[in-house]
Every structure is written in C-alpha cells, then in structure tokens.
C-alpha cells in the first residue's frame, strides 16, 4: 500500500528546503511521532527532545527518502525508533526491574494477555494487527516485545532469558515472518 502523491510532494518540497512544507509535515505527523516516543520513553522531557530530533532528521534527510521503498509513516517510525533506541542506550537503561514495573502497562497487557481490550476493538486496523501479534507463540511474542518495544539488544535478551543469542535471533525472525504472512493474508482477504 502506497500513500497518496500529496505526502510525497510534501517530502520533495522539504528536500528542496521549503519551510512551509516542513511545518505542514510537522503538523501532520507530530501526534504519531509524539505518541510513539512518549510510549517508549517514560521521561516526558527526554521524549520531547527525541521528538524534535526526529523532525530535525526529516528536515535534513528528506532527500534520502525513497517513496518506492517505504511509506512515509514507515520511514518516519524507522527514524523515530532509531533515535529512541539511541537515547535509551545512552541512558544505559539496563535495569530489568524498571521494565517489570511497566509490564502492567496497557501495551504490555495487550501483548501478554489473551484478551484484547474493548476500546481497541473499536479500531479494526489496530485490532487486526494486535490480534496477529496475540496469535504468535509466546516465546516469539516475548522476544519481539523485548527487542522492538523495549529497545533491548539480542544479547541483552539472551542473557536475561538464559538462552543463546542464536535462539533469540531465530525466535525473532520466525515471529516477524509469521506476523508478516498473517498481515499479508488478512490484507488480501480484506
């Protein structure tokens, strides 16, 4: 699925140094980037710094964006993820106990429980993807959660779970490929 030409035009204008286009982009995607960064980083001030970093990177590197390779939202969230992980690692957030405290969060609950909240059901797309995640075997879902949503490295997860890095890598790859296939099939059926 590709986005309409309008956002791609906006990216081209940003790459040419058009400040109005950049601010329109900022207004369009601020909610998404802020929601993502504040979900990943619990300290609001730090999260807000990362949000601005993400948009600075868009401003500087809009010329690198290739619409044939990824949707803008995918590209933007890839940047956001990278900046968040950088920040978390620089903060050396190694304390697993802190994470355990957050395991009661809505996100963790969604990932770990067998039920999906009624609020989520209102949104079909979200529900569809969360359900696909729910259907993954628990070890694969767990690794995906640790690495993708907590920003851990494979080595950190392997040490924590007392398994080899190879096992973690295999679980992750299988989980992600399974998720991809499920989402592709569901998209075809829709």
């Amino acid at each position: 699925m590709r986005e309409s030409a309008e956002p791609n035009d906006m990216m081209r204008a940003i790459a040419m140094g058009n400040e109005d286009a950049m601010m329109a982009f900022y207004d369009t995607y601020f909610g998404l980037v802020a929601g993502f960064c504040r979900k990943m980083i619990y300290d609001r001030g730090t999260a807000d710094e990362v949000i601005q970093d993400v948009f600075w990177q868009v401003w500087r590197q809009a010329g690198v964006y290739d619409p044939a390779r990824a949707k803008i939202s995918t590209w933007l969230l890839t940047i956001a993820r990278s900046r968040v992980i950088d920040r978390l690692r620089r903060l050396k957030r190694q304390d697993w106990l802190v994470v355990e405290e957050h395991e009661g969060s809505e996100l963790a609950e969604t990932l770990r429980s067998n039920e999906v909240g009624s609020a989520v059901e209102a949104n079909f797309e979200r529900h569809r993807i969360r359900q696909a995640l729910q259907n993954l075997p628990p070890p694969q879902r767990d690794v995906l959660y640790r690495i993708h949503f907590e920003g851990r490295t494979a080595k950190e997860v392997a040490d924590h779970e007392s398994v080899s890095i190879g096992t973690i890598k295999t679980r992750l790859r299988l989980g992600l490929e399974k998720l991809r296939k499920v989402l592709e099939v569901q998209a075809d059926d829709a």
Partner: protein
Amino acid sequence: MTHEAIREHLALFAMGGLESDESEAIALHLVSCLQCQRDLGQYQETLGDLDLAMTEPDWAGHQEMRQMFQSRLPNVTPLVETPKASIRTIRRSRGRWGWPAAWAATLLVAFGGWSVAYRAHQEVTQSQRIMAYVTTGRPVSLVSVHAPRAQVDLYLNSSHAVVWVKNLAPLSENQVYEGWWIIKGRPEPAGTFGRGATLLTYPRNATAFAITKEPRGGTKRPTTPILVLGTLQ
C-alpha cells in the same frame, strides 16, 4: 559476514536490536545487495504497521514544540545533495559508458595504469561506506554560539563517524578544517577535511568533537579558536 548470515540478522537489524559493529557490517552489505534491501523493506513495513497499531497519537505540547522547531528552521538547511545521489552519479556514469569503460579499465591495468582504476574503485567504495554510515549513524549537530548559521553534522557509528560540513567559515587557500576528538578533556587529531562528507575513525572514549581551521596537512594541537563543537555522550 556472509550473505546468508546477514539475511538471518535482517529482522534484528530492522529493529535496531544488534550491537553496533554488526549493524555496520549489515549496512555496508545492504548498499550493494538488492535482495537484502527488499527483505529489509518488508520487515520495516511490518514493524511500521505494528508501531502504528500500538501508537495512540499524542498532541500534548504540539503548539509550544512547533514554535521552538520553527524558530530554528531558517538556521539549518536540508541536505539537497545526498550521499545517495553522489553514488547514483558514479553508478550512472559507469553504466552509460558500459563496455568502453570496462575496456578502458582493462587497458589501464594492462598498461600500468592500475592505480587510476584502483582509485576509481576506492572512490565508489568510500561513497558507499559514507552512505551506510550516514544512514545508520547517530546524528550529532555541531554548534557555535558565535556562528549560528554554521552547519555541520556528525554521524556516529561504533568505530567510524562521518563529519558533514555544509556551512562553515570559509577557508583560505592554505587552510583545511581539522577535526578534534576530545578525550579525557584533551583534543586528539581526528583528521583534516573540506566541505562535504568525510569518513573518520571514531574513538569510543571521545566525549566531544570540535573543528578548527588549521594549515594544510593539519597539526597535532589546535592553533586557532574552535569553530563548532558537539558533545557525544
């Protein structure tokens, strides 16, 4: 790392779950491997869908942050000329000349001009490396209170960095920019360069990076005031 080993690691790479030296090896491989680029794109799309599904938009503080962002915007110009573009130019020129270029290269080698062919190959490799390091590196903006329009970015990877000079005080004919890693409070030479992107070796114990103007060839210690500076940790 072999192609197959890299494919095994792509999912982790897409999530940023690898140690930085592994990420660098994969980023370099990706520059020339279409199959891995395709696979990575699919992983990123799946992860993007996952992130979208898990993210509730949050508009708190939008107006204040927007104003702060906008006020700095005129001081920073985007990269209109990307490293990717320069690589495309190199590749396109090779493609356009096709066989004649291949013959020319062969003849150059045959008649002792191997160093020219080697240098051309090295330039392509260097551009690819720079592109990979810029794409995967952590960006650091170097700033100056005396020259707010100065624009230099540094992209940090595990053992390499790319310094990208876009706008900085002009050099005289016999001058170069010299970079300095600040290690334990002391400046250590990082290399000399001009405008554009330059690949440097990055010592992980450096806490800051600075640039001064120095005589061509560089010096062991800074002899002029710092033009721009950025903290790394």
